[in-house]
Protein backbone atom coordinates (compact mmCIF):
# COMPACT_ATOMS: atom_id res chain seq x y z
CA UNK A 1 0.00 0.00 0.00
CA UNK A 2 2.63 2.56 1.07
CA UNK A 3 6.10 1.67 -0.12
CA UNK A 4 9.05 3.84 0.95
CA UNK A 5 12.10 2.96 -1.13
CA UNK A 6 15.48 4.11 0.07
CA UNK A 7 14.35 7.67 0.64
CA UNK A 8 16.63 10.57 1.44
CA UNK A 9 15.20 13.95 2.26
CA UNK A 10 17.04 17.22 2.73
CA UNK A 11 15.22 20.42 3.69
CA UNK A 12 16.00 23.58 1.70
CA UNK A 13 17.86 24.80 4.78
CA UNK A 14 20.33 21.93 4.31
CA UNK A 15 19.11 19.76 7.19
CA UNK A 16 19.28 16.11 6.18
CA UNK A 17 16.13 14.77 7.82
CA UNK A 18 15.89 11.30 6.24
CA UNK A 19 18.83 9.11 5.31
CA UNK A 20 18.09 6.01 3.31
CA UNK A 21 14.73 5.10 4.82
CA UNK A 22 12.92 2.01 3.51
CA UNK A 23 9.60 0.91 4.87
CA UNK A 24 6.53 -0.83 3.63
CA UNK A 25 3.09 -0.47 5.16
CA UNK A 26 0.41 -3.01 4.27
CA UNK A 27 -3.30 -2.35 3.99
CA UNK A 28 -5.05 -2.41 7.34
CA UNK A 29 -1.87 -2.25 9.34
CA UNK A 30 -1.54 -0.28 12.60
CA UNK A 31 1.82 1.43 12.83
CA UNK A 32 3.40 3.70 15.43
CA UNK A 33 6.41 5.76 14.41
CA UNK A 34 8.45 6.67 17.45
CA UNK A 35 11.70 8.42 18.25
CA UNK A 36 13.03 11.55 19.87
CA UNK A 37 12.50 15.12 18.64
CA UNK A 38 14.20 15.74 15.33
CA UNK A 39 14.50 12.02 14.52
CA UNK A 40 12.60 12.57 11.26
CA UNK A 41 9.21 11.14 12.21
CA UNK A 42 7.06 13.97 10.90
CA UNK A 43 9.27 14.37 7.83
CA UNK A 44 8.73 10.70 7.06
CA UNK A 45 4.93 10.77 7.37
CA UNK A 46 4.73 13.95 5.28
CA UNK A 47 6.17 11.83 2.45
CA UNK A 48 3.13 9.54 2.63
CA UNK A 49 0.68 12.14 1.33
CA UNK A 50 3.15 13.99 -0.86
CA UNK A 51 3.48 17.15 1.25
CA UNK A 52 7.19 16.51 0.99
CA UNK A 53 8.73 14.71 -1.97
CA UNK A 54 11.85 12.59 -1.54
CA UNK A 55 15.17 14.18 -2.52
CA UNK A 56 16.40 10.70 -3.45
CA UNK A 57 14.50 7.40 -3.71
CA UNK A 58 10.75 7.20 -4.06
CA UNK A 59 7.50 6.74 -2.18
CA UNK A 60 4.73 4.67 -3.77
CA UNK A 61 1.14 4.89 -2.62
CA UNK A 62 -0.92 2.08 -4.17
CA UNK A 63 1.86 1.69 -6.70
CA UNK A 64 1.88 5.36 -7.79
CA UNK A 65 4.90 7.52 -7.05
CA UNK A 66 4.08 10.60 -4.92
CA UNK A 67 6.02 12.65 -7.45
CA UNK A 68 3.44 11.92 -10.16
CA UNK A 69 0.30 12.91 -8.26
CA UNK A 70 -0.91 16.07 -6.51
CA UNK A 71 -1.23 16.34 -2.74
CA UNK A 72 -4.96 16.94 -3.14
CA UNK A 73 -5.41 13.66 -5.06
CA UNK A 74 -3.26 11.72 -2.61
CA UNK A 75 -5.08 13.26 0.33
CA UNK A 76 -8.24 11.51 -0.83
CA UNK A 77 -6.53 8.22 0.07
CA UNK A 78 -4.18 9.35 2.81
CA UNK A 79 -5.75 11.52 5.52
CA UNK A 80 -3.35 13.50 7.67
CA UNK A 81 -4.37 14.95 11.05
CA UNK A 82 -1.89 17.63 12.09
CA UNK A 83 -0.54 17.98 15.58
CA UNK A 84 -2.05 21.39 16.31
CA UNK A 85 -5.74 21.76 15.38
CA UNK A 86 -5.30 25.55 15.44
CA UNK A 87 -3.29 25.21 12.24
CA UNK A 88 -6.35 24.21 10.29
CA UNK A 89 -9.56 25.46 11.93
CA UNK A 90 -11.00 28.51 10.18
CA UNK A 91 -14.73 28.03 9.57
CA UNK A 92 -17.61 29.70 11.33
CA UNK A 93 -19.17 26.46 12.51
CA UNK A 94 -17.92 22.98 13.29
CA UNK A 95 -20.21 21.66 10.59
CA UNK A 96 -18.63 23.91 7.93
CA UNK A 97 -15.17 22.94 9.13
CA UNK A 98 -15.90 19.28 8.53
CA UNK A 99 -17.52 19.99 5.17
CA UNK A 100 -14.47 21.93 3.93
CA UNK A 101 -12.44 18.94 2.75
CA UNK A 102 -15.54 17.25 1.32
CA UNK A 103 -16.20 20.35 -0.83
CA UNK A 104 -12.57 20.30 -1.99
CA UNK A 105 -12.96 16.70 -3.06
CA UNK A 106 -16.17 17.53 -4.91
CA UNK A 107 -18.64 15.45 -2.90
CA UNK A 108 -22.29 15.90 -3.89
CA UNK A 109 -24.29 18.12 -1.50
CA UNK A 110 -26.54 15.25 -0.34
CA UNK A 111 -23.62 12.88 0.32
CA UNK A 112 -21.77 15.72 1.99
CA UNK A 113 -24.57 16.30 4.50
CA UNK A 114 -24.70 12.62 5.37
CA UNK A 115 -20.93 12.40 5.80
CA UNK A 116 -20.81 15.48 8.04
CA UNK A 117 -23.54 14.07 10.29
CA UNK A 118 -21.74 10.73 10.37
CA UNK A 119 -18.40 12.33 11.34
CA UNK A 120 -20.01 14.56 14.00
CA UNK A 121 -21.63 11.50 15.49
CA UNK A 122 -18.45 9.44 15.30
CA UNK A 123 -16.50 11.91 17.43
CA UNK A 124 -19.35 12.86 19.71
CA UNK A 125 -19.55 16.42 18.40
CA UNK A 126 -23.19 16.56 17.34
CA UNK A 127 -24.12 19.09 20.03
CA UNK A 128 -21.46 21.49 18.67
CA UNK A 129 -22.69 21.32 15.09
CA UNK A 130 -23.44 25.06 14.91
CA UNK A 131 -20.76 26.21 17.37
CA UNK A 132 -17.68 28.10 16.25
CA UNK A 133 -14.65 25.80 16.45
CA UNK A 134 -12.76 28.62 18.17
CA UNK A 135 -15.15 28.46 21.15
CA UNK A 136 -14.31 24.82 21.89
CA UNK A 137 -11.76 23.49 24.37
CA UNK A 138 -8.38 22.18 23.23
CA UNK A 139 -9.47 18.54 23.33
CA UNK A 140 -12.68 19.29 21.44
CA UNK A 141 -10.80 21.24 18.77
CA UNK A 142 -8.58 18.23 18.32
CA UNK A 143 -11.64 16.06 17.82
CA UNK A 144 -13.02 18.49 15.24
CA UNK A 145 -9.72 18.28 13.35
CA UNK A 146 -9.91 14.49 13.45
CA UNK A 147 -13.56 14.49 12.34
CA UNK A 148 -12.74 16.82 9.46
CA UNK A 149 -10.30 14.23 8.12
CA UNK A 150 -12.26 11.05 8.85
CA UNK A 151 -15.32 12.57 7.16
CA UNK A 152 -14.05 11.69 3.69
CA UNK A 153 -13.20 8.18 4.79
CA UNK A 154 -9.56 7.96 3.65
CA UNK A 155 -8.02 4.50 3.45
CA UNK A 156 -5.04 5.57 5.51
CA UNK A 157 -5.18 7.87 8.53
CA UNK A 158 -2.00 9.52 9.79
CA UNK A 159 -2.13 11.12 13.24
CA UNK A 160 0.77 13.38 14.20
CA UNK A 161 1.20 13.43 18.00
CA UNK A 162 -2.45 12.66 18.77
CA UNK A 163 -1.97 12.43 22.54
CA UNK A 164 -0.29 15.78 23.20
CA UNK A 165 -2.40 17.99 25.48
CA UNK A 166 -5.02 15.32 26.13
CA UNK A 167 -5.97 14.28 29.63
CA UNK A 168 -6.04 10.66 30.68
CA UNK A 169 -9.72 10.15 29.91
CA UNK A 170 -9.45 11.72 26.46
CA UNK A 171 -6.41 9.59 25.72
CA UNK A 172 -8.29 6.46 26.63
CA UNK A 173 -11.23 7.45 24.39
CA UNK A 174 -8.77 8.24 21.60
CA UNK A 175 -7.03 4.91 22.04
CA UNK A 176 -10.26 2.94 21.81
CA UNK A 177 -11.25 5.01 18.83
CA UNK A 178 -7.99 4.36 16.97
CA UNK A 179 -8.11 0.64 17.73
CA UNK A 180 -11.69 0.56 16.48
CA UNK A 181 -10.77 2.39 13.27
CA UNK A 182 -8.02 -0.12 12.66
CA UNK A 183 -10.34 -3.03 13.40
CA UNK A 184 -12.65 -1.71 10.68
CA UNK A 185 -9.83 -2.17 8.21
CA UNK A 186 -8.27 1.29 8.07
CA UNK A 187 -4.53 1.66 7.90
CA UNK A 188 -3.56 3.79 10.89
CA UNK A 189 -0.18 5.48 11.33
CA UNK A 190 0.51 7.41 14.53
CA UNK A 191 3.55 9.52 15.26
CA UNK A 192 4.21 9.80 18.96
CA UNK A 193 6.61 9.95 21.91
CA UNK A 194 4.07 8.47 24.25
CA UNK A 195 5.38 4.98 25.08
CA UNK A 196 2.60 4.20 27.54
CA UNK A 197 0.02 5.00 24.87
CA UNK A 198 1.76 2.79 22.31
CA UNK A 199 2.11 -0.01 24.86
CA UNK A 200 -1.64 0.01 25.44
CA UNK A 201 -2.38 -0.14 21.70
CA UNK A 202 0.44 -2.56 20.85
CA UNK A 203 0.79 -1.83 17.14
CA UNK A 204 3.80 -2.47 14.91
CA UNK A 205 6.48 -0.03 16.05
CA UNK A 206 8.99 1.72 13.81
CA UNK A 207 11.70 3.39 15.83
CA UNK A 208 13.65 6.28 14.31
CA UNK A 209 16.85 8.06 15.28
CA UNK A 210 18.78 10.67 13.33
CA UNK A 211 16.83 10.24 10.14
CA UNK A 212 17.10 6.45 10.03
CA UNK A 213 14.95 3.53 11.08
CA UNK A 214 16.77 1.75 13.91
CA UNK A 215 14.16 -0.86 14.76
CA UNK A 216 10.98 -2.19 13.24
CA UNK A 217 8.70 -4.81 14.73
CA UNK A 218 6.15 -5.81 17.28
CA UNK A 219 5.54 -3.24 20.10
CA UNK A 220 6.24 -5.91 22.69
CA UNK A 221 9.63 -6.75 21.27
CA UNK A 222 10.79 -3.18 20.66
CA UNK A 223 9.56 -1.50 23.81
CA UNK A 224 11.06 -4.15 26.08
CA UNK A 225 14.51 -4.07 24.52
CA UNK A 226 16.61 -1.68 26.65
CA UNK A 227 19.42 -1.49 24.05
CA UNK A 228 17.10 -0.47 21.25
CA UNK A 229 15.39 2.05 23.51
CA UNK A 230 18.73 3.56 24.45
CA UNK A 231 19.73 3.89 20.81
CA UNK A 232 16.58 5.88 19.99
CA UNK A 233 16.53 7.76 23.31
CA UNK A 234 13.15 6.51 24.40
CA UNK A 235 12.38 5.10 27.82
CA UNK A 236 10.46 1.79 28.04
CA UNK A 237 7.01 2.03 29.71
CA UNK A 238 7.21 2.28 33.51
CA UNK A 239 5.62 -1.12 33.97
CA UNK A 240 8.28 -2.64 31.69
CA UNK A 241 11.00 -0.92 33.67
CA UNK A 242 9.73 -2.53 36.88
CA UNK A 243 9.75 -5.99 35.29
CA UNK A 244 13.19 -5.40 33.76
CA UNK A 245 14.39 -4.60 37.29
CA UNK A 246 12.90 -7.78 38.72
CA UNK A 247 14.31 -10.31 36.27
CA UNK A 248 16.20 -12.19 39.01
CA UNK A 249 12.84 -13.19 40.53
CA UNK A 250 12.16 -15.10 37.34
CA UNK A 251 9.47 -12.68 36.15
CA UNK A 252 8.95 -12.20 32.39
CA UNK A 253 10.74 -9.25 30.77
CA UNK A 254 8.38 -8.64 27.90
CA UNK A 255 5.52 -7.04 29.83
CA UNK A 256 4.26 -3.76 28.37
CA UNK A 257 0.85 -3.11 29.83
CA UNK A 258 -0.87 -3.21 33.19
CA UNK A 259 -3.26 -6.10 32.61
CA UNK A 260 -0.41 -8.32 31.45
CA UNK A 261 1.61 -7.22 34.46
CA UNK A 262 -1.20 -8.08 36.85
CA UNK A 263 -1.54 -11.50 35.28
CA UNK A 264 2.18 -12.20 35.51
CA UNK A 265 2.34 -11.07 39.11
CA UNK A 266 -0.68 -13.16 40.13
CA UNK A 267 0.83 -16.21 38.50
CA UNK A 268 4.07 -15.56 40.33
CA UNK A 269 2.33 -15.18 43.69
CA UNK A 270 0.10 -18.19 43.17
CA UNK A 271 3.20 -20.21 42.43
CA UNK A 272 3.93 -19.87 46.14
CA UNK A 273 6.67 -17.33 45.87
CA UNK A 274 5.56 -14.94 48.65
Amino acid sequence: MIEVKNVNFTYPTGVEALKGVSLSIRNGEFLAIMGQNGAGKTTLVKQFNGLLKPTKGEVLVDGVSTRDISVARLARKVGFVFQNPDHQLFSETVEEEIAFALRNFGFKESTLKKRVTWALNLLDLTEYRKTSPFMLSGGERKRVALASVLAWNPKVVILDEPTIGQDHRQKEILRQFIVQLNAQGKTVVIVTHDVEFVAECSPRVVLMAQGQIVADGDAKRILTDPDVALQASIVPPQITQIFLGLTDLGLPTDVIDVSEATKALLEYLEGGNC
Partner: protein
Amino acid sequence: MSVLEGFRFRHVSSPIHRRDPRVKFLYVLVSFIAAIMFNELPLLLVLFFLPTPFVLLAGVQRQWLRSLRGAMFLASFLFVFNLIFGFLSPENIPKTMSPPEYAFAMSLRFLDLVESFSIFFLTTSPDHLSLALEQSRVPYEFTFAFTTAVRFVPVLAEEAQTIMDAQKARGLELEKGNFMKRVRNYIPILIPLIVSSIRRSLELAEAMESRGWGASKKRTNLYALKMRRGDWVLAIVSLLFLVTVIYVRLYVPVPTFTMLLPH
Protein backbone atom coordinates in the same frame (compact mmCIF):
# COMPACT_ATOMS: atom_id res chain seq x y z
CA MET B 1 6.82 33.46 1.48
CA SER B 2 9.89 34.39 -0.54
CA VAL B 3 9.29 38.12 0.01
CA LEU B 4 9.57 37.56 3.74
CA GLU B 5 12.79 35.58 3.15
CA GLY B 6 14.26 38.77 1.72
CA PHE B 7 13.67 40.63 4.95
CA ARG B 8 15.11 38.03 7.23
CA PHE B 9 18.31 38.90 9.00
CA ARG B 10 21.20 36.45 9.20
CA HIS B 11 24.18 37.01 11.45
CA VAL B 12 27.17 37.75 9.25
CA SER B 13 29.75 40.44 9.50
CA SER B 14 30.56 42.76 6.61
CA PRO B 15 31.40 46.46 6.27
CA ILE B 16 27.71 47.02 5.55
CA HIS B 17 26.44 44.93 8.47
CA ARG B 18 28.69 46.88 10.85
CA ARG B 19 27.37 50.30 9.85
CA ASP B 20 25.28 52.25 12.32
CA PRO B 21 21.61 51.42 11.64
CA ARG B 22 20.69 55.11 11.85
CA VAL B 23 23.01 55.88 8.97
CA LYS B 24 21.74 52.90 7.00
CA PHE B 25 18.24 54.17 7.57
CA LEU B 26 19.26 57.58 6.29
CA TYR B 27 20.55 55.85 3.15
CA VAL B 28 17.26 53.96 2.74
CA LEU B 29 15.33 57.19 3.24
CA VAL B 30 17.39 58.95 0.59
CA SER B 31 16.89 56.17 -1.96
CA PHE B 32 13.21 56.21 -1.05
CA ILE B 33 12.98 59.96 -1.72
CA ALA B 34 14.93 59.57 -4.96
CA ALA B 35 12.60 56.83 -6.21
CA ILE B 36 9.54 58.90 -5.32
CA MET B 37 10.85 62.05 -7.00
CA PHE B 38 11.38 60.53 -10.42
CA ASN B 39 9.04 58.76 -12.74
CA GLU B 40 11.44 58.72 -15.67
CA LEU B 41 12.45 55.20 -16.59
CA PRO B 42 16.16 55.85 -17.33
CA LEU B 43 16.75 57.33 -13.87
CA LEU B 44 14.73 54.63 -12.13
CA LEU B 45 16.93 52.10 -13.90
CA VAL B 46 20.03 53.87 -12.60
CA LEU B 47 18.51 53.85 -9.10
CA PHE B 48 17.83 50.16 -9.48
CA PHE B 49 21.45 49.27 -10.14
CA LEU B 50 22.99 51.81 -7.77
CA PRO B 51 22.76 49.63 -4.62
CA THR B 52 24.44 46.63 -6.29
CA PRO B 53 27.91 47.41 -4.79
CA PHE B 54 26.36 47.56 -1.29
CA VAL B 55 24.68 44.23 -1.81
CA LEU B 56 27.86 42.58 -3.05
CA LEU B 57 29.90 44.12 -0.23
CA ALA B 58 27.41 42.77 2.32
CA GLY B 59 27.36 39.37 0.57
CA VAL B 60 23.58 39.11 0.72
CA GLN B 61 22.97 38.91 -3.04
CA ARG B 62 21.12 35.59 -2.85
CA GLN B 63 18.53 36.67 -0.30
CA TRP B 64 18.32 40.04 -2.01
CA LEU B 65 17.48 38.46 -5.34
CA ARG B 66 14.97 36.25 -3.64
CA SER B 67 13.16 39.25 -2.13
CA LEU B 68 13.07 40.87 -5.57
CA ARG B 69 11.70 37.72 -7.09
CA GLY B 70 9.02 37.67 -4.37
CA ALA B 71 8.15 41.30 -5.13
CA MET B 72 7.83 40.48 -8.83
CA PHE B 73 4.26 39.32 -8.40
CA LEU B 74 3.09 42.67 -7.06
CA ALA B 75 5.30 44.51 -9.54
CA SER B 76 3.69 42.74 -12.48
CA PHE B 77 0.32 43.61 -10.97
CA LEU B 78 1.30 47.27 -10.90
CA PHE B 79 2.52 46.98 -14.47
CA VAL B 80 -0.74 45.54 -15.76
CA PHE B 81 -2.92 48.04 -13.91
CA ASN B 82 -0.86 51.06 -14.93
CA LEU B 83 -0.82 49.83 -18.50
CA ILE B 84 -4.59 49.46 -18.61
CA PHE B 85 -5.23 52.84 -17.01
CA GLY B 86 -2.53 54.45 -19.13
CA PHE B 87 -4.34 53.38 -22.28
CA LEU B 88 -7.79 54.16 -20.90
CA SER B 89 -6.98 57.67 -19.76
CA PRO B 90 -3.72 58.87 -21.33
CA GLU B 91 -4.28 62.36 -19.94
CA ASN B 92 -3.33 61.08 -16.47
CA ILE B 93 0.19 60.04 -17.42
CA PRO B 94 3.05 62.42 -18.28
CA LYS B 95 3.02 63.52 -21.92
CA THR B 96 6.67 62.59 -22.31
CA MET B 97 5.94 58.89 -21.83
CA SER B 98 4.07 56.19 -23.68
CA PRO B 99 1.74 54.05 -21.52
CA PRO B 100 4.02 50.97 -21.58
CA GLU B 101 7.03 53.00 -20.50
CA TYR B 102 5.01 54.64 -17.74
CA ALA B 103 3.71 51.28 -16.52
CA PHE B 104 7.20 49.83 -16.55
CA ALA B 105 8.56 52.86 -14.70
CA MET B 106 5.90 52.53 -11.98
CA SER B 107 6.61 48.87 -11.31
CA LEU B 108 10.35 49.54 -11.36
CA ARG B 109 9.84 52.31 -8.82
CA PHE B 110 8.13 49.79 -6.57
CA LEU B 111 11.06 47.39 -7.00
CA ASP B 112 13.49 50.23 -6.17
CA LEU B 113 11.65 50.75 -2.89
CA VAL B 114 11.53 47.06 -2.02
CA GLU B 115 15.18 46.70 -2.86
CA SER B 116 16.43 49.44 -0.54
CA PHE B 117 14.30 48.27 2.37
CA SER B 118 15.39 44.72 1.77
CA ILE B 119 19.07 45.73 1.99
CA PHE B 120 18.37 47.54 5.24
CA PHE B 121 16.65 44.58 6.88
CA LEU B 122 19.09 42.03 5.49
CA THR B 123 22.07 43.81 7.00
CA THR B 124 20.66 45.16 10.27
CA SER B 125 20.14 42.88 13.25
CA PRO B 126 16.90 43.39 15.19
CA ASP B 127 19.02 44.17 18.27
CA HIS B 128 20.84 46.98 16.50
CA LEU B 129 17.61 48.29 15.20
CA SER B 130 16.06 48.44 18.63
CA LEU B 131 19.17 50.17 20.00
CA ALA B 132 18.98 52.72 17.24
CA LEU B 133 15.32 53.41 17.92
CA GLU B 134 15.92 53.69 21.65
CA GLN B 135 18.81 56.08 21.19
CA SER B 136 16.59 58.16 18.95
CA ARG B 137 14.36 58.55 22.04
CA VAL B 138 11.54 56.40 20.75
CA PRO B 139 9.61 55.11 23.83
CA TYR B 140 10.76 51.61 24.74
CA GLU B 141 7.25 50.17 24.42
CA PHE B 142 7.23 51.07 20.71
CA THR B 143 10.79 49.91 20.17
CA PHE B 144 9.99 46.61 21.74
CA ALA B 145 6.80 46.13 19.77
CA PHE B 146 8.66 46.91 16.56
CA THR B 147 11.60 44.58 17.15
CA THR B 148 9.29 41.81 18.30
CA ALA B 149 7.34 42.17 15.08
CA VAL B 150 10.54 41.90 13.05
CA ARG B 151 11.75 38.96 15.09
CA PHE B 152 8.51 37.08 14.59
CA VAL B 153 8.54 37.29 10.81
CA PRO B 154 10.41 33.98 10.35
CA VAL B 155 8.18 32.31 12.96
CA LEU B 156 5.15 33.52 11.10
CA ALA B 157 6.54 32.33 7.77
CA GLU B 158 7.14 28.87 9.21
CA GLU B 159 3.66 28.78 10.69
CA ALA B 160 2.12 29.84 7.39
CA GLN B 161 3.91 26.89 5.77
CA THR B 162 2.51 24.44 8.33
CA ILE B 163 -0.99 25.82 7.87
CA MET B 164 -0.67 25.53 4.10
CA ASP B 165 0.41 21.91 4.51
CA ALA B 166 -2.51 21.20 6.86
CA GLN B 167 -5.04 22.64 4.40
CA LYS B 168 -3.43 20.94 1.40
CA ALA B 169 -3.79 17.69 3.31
CA ARG B 170 -7.51 18.46 3.36
CA GLY B 171 -7.60 18.79 -0.40
CA LEU B 172 -7.14 22.56 -0.76
CA GLU B 173 -5.58 23.49 -4.08
CA LEU B 174 -4.22 27.02 -3.92
CA GLU B 175 -3.53 27.37 -7.63
CA LYS B 176 -6.95 26.22 -8.76
CA GLY B 177 -9.73 28.36 -10.22
CA ASN B 178 -10.06 31.85 -11.63
CA PHE B 179 -8.64 34.97 -10.00
CA MET B 180 -11.40 35.50 -7.40
CA LYS B 181 -11.37 31.80 -6.52
CA ARG B 182 -7.64 31.91 -6.00
CA VAL B 183 -7.93 34.87 -3.66
CA ARG B 184 -10.64 33.02 -1.74
CA ASN B 185 -8.39 29.95 -1.53
CA TYR B 186 -6.20 31.91 0.86
CA ILE B 187 -8.96 32.39 3.46
CA PRO B 188 -8.34 28.94 5.05
CA ILE B 189 -4.67 29.94 5.37
CA LEU B 190 -5.13 33.48 6.63
CA ILE B 191 -7.73 32.87 9.35
CA PRO B 192 -5.72 30.25 11.29
CA LEU B 193 -2.61 32.40 10.83
CA ILE B 194 -4.29 35.51 12.27
CA VAL B 195 -6.01 33.63 15.07
CA SER B 196 -2.83 31.91 16.19
CA SER B 197 -0.87 35.18 15.95
CA ILE B 198 -3.33 36.89 18.25
CA ARG B 199 -3.25 33.94 20.59
CA ARG B 200 0.54 33.98 20.60
CA SER B 201 0.74 37.70 21.24
CA LEU B 202 -1.53 37.34 24.27
CA GLU B 203 0.65 34.51 25.54
CA LEU B 204 3.77 36.59 24.96
CA ALA B 205 2.25 39.52 26.87
CA GLU B 206 1.44 37.26 29.82
CA ALA B 207 4.91 35.72 29.78
CA MET B 208 6.51 39.16 29.67
CA GLU B 209 4.41 40.50 32.50
CA SER B 210 5.15 37.52 34.68
CA ARG B 211 8.84 38.24 34.14
CA GLY B 212 8.43 41.82 35.32
CA TRP B 213 8.36 43.69 32.05
CA GLY B 214 8.19 47.44 32.60
CA ALA B 215 9.04 47.12 36.30
CA SER B 216 11.68 49.83 36.17
CA LYS B 217 11.01 53.05 34.32
CA LYS B 218 14.61 53.84 33.43
CA ARG B 219 16.41 51.36 31.18
CA THR B 220 20.08 51.17 30.47
CA ASN B 221 21.84 49.25 27.71
CA LEU B 222 24.99 47.17 27.76
CA TYR B 223 25.99 48.43 24.33
CA ALA B 224 25.60 51.91 22.94
CA LEU B 225 25.79 52.83 19.28
CA LYS B 226 28.66 55.09 18.31
CA MET B 227 29.24 56.71 14.95
CA ARG B 228 32.54 55.53 13.45
CA ARG B 229 34.45 56.84 10.46
CA GLY B 230 32.70 54.50 8.02
CA ASP B 231 29.35 55.67 9.35
CA TRP B 232 30.21 59.32 8.76
CA VAL B 233 31.40 58.48 5.24
CA LEU B 234 28.13 56.68 4.42
CA ALA B 235 26.12 59.52 5.97
CA ILE B 236 27.94 62.15 3.91
CA VAL B 237 27.65 60.07 0.73
CA SER B 238 23.91 59.68 1.35
CA LEU B 239 23.44 63.41 1.92
CA LEU B 240 25.48 64.27 -1.18
CA PHE B 241 23.33 61.84 -3.10
CA LEU B 242 20.21 63.56 -1.79
CA VAL B 243 21.52 66.99 -2.84
CA THR B 244 22.41 65.64 -6.30
CA VAL B 245 19.00 64.08 -6.71
CA ILE B 246 17.23 67.32 -5.77
CA TYR B 247 19.52 69.31 -8.07
CA VAL B 248 18.86 67.00 -11.01
CA ARG B 249 15.12 67.16 -10.37
CA LEU B 250 15.08 70.95 -10.30
CA TYR B 251 17.59 71.94 -12.95
CA VAL B 252 18.37 69.02 -15.28
CA PRO B 253 15.79 67.92 -17.84
CA VAL B 254 15.55 64.13 -17.61
CA PRO B 255 14.85 62.38 -20.91
CA THR B 256 12.50 59.42 -21.26
CA PHE B 257 12.84 56.53 -23.68
CA THR B 258 9.69 57.69 -25.45
CA MET B 259 11.37 61.03 -26.21
CA LEU B 260 14.57 59.35 -27.37
CA LEU B 261 12.81 57.12 -29.83
CA PRO B 262 12.48 58.54 -33.34
CA HIS B 263 8.87 59.19 -34.26
